[in-house]
């Protein structure tokens, strides 16, 4: 169970949001919406522990994440704006290394299956990621989610650059993650095609 208590944040000298208290129960998705510049990315980064809030706390199973430190980081998978993949390596190599660093199954076979699940077929697997399109690179970045066994997923505008096929792959995968009791926090502009009772919205305004 995951919650924020009276979270306030600012970026530089700009106050972004204040007194945000929200709870995310297992099996639910929190969609963070708001205009550009409203602080969605900063909010997500605070949930990751990359950014410190001005005030307030973030609790995982009732404990402040600042006390949990590494124990909390082992619970989450974050896919941010940047893909977090190396252009010089192939998609398979990228995935096996990030799975190894996540402590997940890091065999080549598992990586290939994940890539296929996200719509990237065999011929692409052995090319350096550099030659792929933006949308394909985004799919490689998101393929981590098919290997991840962590309960909390923090995704920053994951649907950017994706075509409708990839969007539906991802939405289905989010659905199966939720049905296994996982939690997702997504910053997005789009409506997510999931059953409304498993989705709550958080609107960030200045």
């Amino acid at each position, binding site marked *: 169970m995951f919650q924020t208590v009276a979270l306030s944040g600012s970026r530089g000298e700009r106050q972004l949001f204040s007194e945000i208290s929200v709870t995310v129960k297992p099996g639910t998705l929190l969609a963070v919406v708001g205009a550009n510049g409203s602080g969605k990315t900063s909010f997500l980064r605070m949930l*990751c522990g990359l950014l410190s809030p001005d005030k307030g706390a973030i609790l995982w199973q009732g404990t402040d994440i600042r006390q949990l430190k590494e124990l909390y980081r082992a619970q989450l998978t974050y896919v941010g704006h940047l893909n977090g*993949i*190396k252009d010089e390596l192939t998609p398979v190599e990228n995935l096996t290394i990030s799975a*190894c660093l996540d402590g997940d199954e890091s065999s080549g076979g598992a990586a290939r299956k994940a890539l296929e699940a996200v719509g990237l077929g065999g011929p692409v697997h052995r090319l350096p990621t550099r030659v792929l399109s933006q949308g394909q690179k985004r799919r490689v970045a998101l393929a981590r989610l098919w290997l991840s066994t962590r309960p909390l997923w923090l995704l920053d505008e994951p649907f950017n650059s994706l075509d409708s096929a990839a969007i539906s792959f991802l939405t289905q995968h989010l659905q199966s993650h939720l049905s296994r009791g996982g939690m997702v926090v997504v910053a997005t502009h789009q409506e997510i095609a999931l059953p409304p009772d498993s989705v709550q919205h958080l609107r960030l305004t200045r």
Partner: protein
Amino acid sequence: MSQPSMSEALRGIVQRDLQLAMRHRSDVAMSIFFVVIVASLFPLGVGPESAVLRMIASGVLWVTALLACLLSLGRLFTADFLDGVLEQMLLIPQPLSILVVGKVFAHWVISGLPVVLLSPLLGLQFGLSGESLWVLTLSLLLGTPTLSMIGAIGAALTLGLRGSGLLVALLVLPLFIPVLIFGAGSVTSSLAGIGSEANLSLLGACFLFSLVFAPWATAVALRIALE
């Protein structure tokens, strides 16, 4: 919930960087060529008398190795910072300072180790021989990883800033000076017949001290830079 063990995480970090270096083999070559060219500048500037060259050898070769380290620091974190890989590294559930040791080790293997392996040849060019050649290599073997670890602090503090190349030099050179003094001093004292043990022990102490403190300072600086 899954967590890599510390050795798995370290291995992953080192393996990735070494794999990347294999795709960019020119990086390794660049370090080597830089050191060779710069070391050759000094006889051209100072004159080829062997007595003079022997006297300046320790200082010249050490400063050259130091400059090579300095120039390679830009490659330590910047690429990872730009493509989001560094951000992911901060989220690995292992102490960041350990992961930094992995990054710096891989970086040293690519940019520092070739200089160490090349140093006997350069020493010969400057008229060093016998024991002093051996001392030069050993001092660089201890010194170059120390310089990389200390340099990582500067690289992390200046991550993503404009003009960071010059700025990192300014920040890090005062921190390099003790290593330079003990390193070059070991070769000088060997040439003078005094014996290099004292300088080498001090160099070893610098290495251990930086191994304990520099990765931690670098980790703090990385978190500050990625906020």
